[in-house]
């Protein structure tokens, strides 16, 4: 009833091409932003910030980056963890070596490091495709694992690559309370999501999608595969690198190379696929699912098993968690292989026509 676009006439090209052409969508997004920026800080506790909100915001950012590469440009990558690591350690190096560097430039510089790394490891994509490329990107992952463990210069001579940062500042204000950290990450996310959305709507986004759908055909109609693929790698690894820097600086505080293992790469890919390939919105859904699921399982599984009179040990919980996680992923892929974003758009379509079926 409420979700109708009747009577909303577009009188200019600009109005027709805006991100949210329907008024209700704009209102909804505005409300969502208001809740995220004002509602959450009023209600959330420190525990919720540290375990759900901050990880969710940062992982959404990373998922947007992965989605640009995998969902829009069609280059399957299992090296996202490495891009995050390079972003984190790159930002760390600038932060330590330039005294008094504020957080925002450090994060951006970290993103630029990840971008260079991403372009380097994106070069094989010009020759190799599909699953071969997926395996090839694992090279980036293992190389970065090794690099931050063994090359002492990159970790400021700290033992086994574990480093920590203190005294974060944004625009002269200290970044200490969980609420401040959350708001900072959220602001970065909103800015980047807006930029990414506009990028994929524009000429370059269409080039990426053409490459994804059929790269030979795209080359025939005059799209340069090298430029398109490498730009996707650059943009994607820049965003993932920024997410990595935020993850390390704001969420973890002190970290070691194992924080960005191949496990993170897999989880990021899960987020993108469960959320929906080729959709900025999907990144948010996927991140929410993957971040919240383990916490929810951890919290409710023992209580749930108690109902049946089964006592479950801590090790048992972690094994059951693995099983349920794996099982749910398979189930999701079977039920909705196009991800949660597809459900979302189907729901919207249905609402628009309601109460008629067609």
């Amino acid at each position: 009833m409420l979700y109708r676009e009747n009577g909303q006439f577009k009188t200019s090209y600009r109005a027709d091409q805006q991100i949210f052409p329907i008024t209700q969508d704009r209102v909804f997004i505005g409300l969502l932003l208001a809740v995220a920026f004002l509602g959450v800080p009023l209600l959330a506790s420190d525990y919720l910030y540290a375990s759900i909100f901050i990880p969710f915001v940062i992982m959404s950012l990373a998922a947007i980056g992965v989605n640009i590469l995998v969902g829009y440009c069609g280059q399957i990558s299992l090296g996202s963890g490495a891009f995050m690591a390079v972003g984190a350690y790159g930002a760390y190096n600038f932060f330590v070596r330039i005294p008094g560097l504020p957080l925002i430039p450090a994060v951006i510089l970290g993103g630029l490091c990840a971008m260079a790394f991403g372009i380097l490891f994106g070069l094989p994509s010009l020759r190799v495709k599909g699953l071969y490329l997926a395996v090839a990107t694992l090279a980036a992952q293992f190389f970065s694992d090794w690099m931050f463990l063994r090359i002492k210069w990159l970790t400021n001579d700290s033992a086994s690559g574990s480093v920590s940062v203190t005294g974060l500042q944004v625009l002269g204000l200290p970044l200490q309370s969980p609420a401040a950290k959350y708001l900072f990450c959220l602001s970065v996310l909103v800015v980047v999501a807006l930029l990414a959305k506009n990028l994929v709507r524009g000429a370059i986004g269409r080039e990426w999608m053409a490459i994804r759908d059929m790269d030979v055909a795209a080359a025939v109609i005059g799209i340069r595969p090298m430029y398109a693929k490498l730009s996707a790698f650059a943009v994607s690894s820049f965003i993932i690198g920024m997410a990595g820097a935020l993850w390390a600086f704001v969420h973890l505080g002190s970290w070691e190379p194992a924080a960005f293992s191949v496990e993170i790469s897999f989880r990021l890919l899960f987020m993108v696929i469960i959320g929906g390939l080729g959709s900025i919105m999907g990144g948010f859904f996927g991140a929410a699912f993957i971040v919240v699921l383990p916490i929810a399982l951890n919290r409710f599984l023992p209580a749930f098993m108690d109902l049946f009179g089964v006592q479950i040990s801590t090790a048992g919980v972690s094994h059951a968690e693995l099983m349920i996680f794996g099982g749910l992923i398979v189930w999701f892929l079977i039920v909705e292989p196009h991800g949660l974003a597809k459900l979302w758009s189907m729901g919207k379509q249905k609402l628009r026509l309601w109460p008629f079926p067609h």
Partner: protein
Amino acid sequence: MAFFLETLIGGLMAGMLYSLVALGFVLIYKASGVFNFAQGAMVLFAALAMARFSEWIPKWTGIDNLVVANLIAFALAGVCMFVVAWLIERLVLRHLVNQEGATLLMATLGIAYFLEGLGQTLFGSDIYKIDVGMPKDPIFMLESAFQGGILVNKEDVIAAAIAAALVVLLSVFFQKTTTGRALRAVADDHQAAQSIGIPLNRIWVIVWCVAGVVALVSGMIWGSKLGVQFSLTTIALRALPVVILGGLTSVPGAILGGLIIGVGEKLSEVYLGPFVGGGIEIWFAYVLALVFLLFRPQGLFGEKIIDRV
């Protein structure tokens, strides 16, 4: 020179074991076009089953002959792998026919998580050992040619021999039996195979069973070398460069790729490692495979990739 040969032989032995794991990948990819990331979890699952059954059987039945107990344990673990293969086909693959490669890849990752959890729930999560009576003592070879001879681990030689025997067995199975021919037909073209009456679903179960047995054998060998523990799953990641080097669709490629990677890893670690701080084994294999792919994108023996608009 003796040292070089020793490293070389060590590399070849390790390579044989990698190719055993790689074989599991290739079998499944050939038959169903699924890139099976769960191979590592299957190795862990099989090894856990084998280790625990060989521990439990003397207790249950009173058989204290090591060989008999191990044989029964092997058979029981094999049955477990058959059940797993059947369930995977029945519950997962059947519903995901005609999906994209990335979706199938993710599904096998989901299966991997599930199997890791299930295996540890059923069989426990400590470190277990498999004792199949392999001799651990090293032997010296070619003492006449070099002073002091070349040190070779007997266990490695036996493991390599088992791997080689399995490969020969599999190639005979693929080339000479009716089922093997059906498997190759499915690998070539699903639709054509189905249209001449080959049951796709049964073929998939069979191929996952074969991969399960391969996982069991590699789990047994790796398990008796390193102990059965969670880190066995990472062996699959070590074997991935082997697969892309050899080509995803080629059994001989998996063998030769394994040997190249095994030798490359060992030689690089010994001769290159000291200059860059050691521990380069794990990524060197990937970089080797990557450089190789730049010249032959389909791997050593993979089918030539032809793009048509």
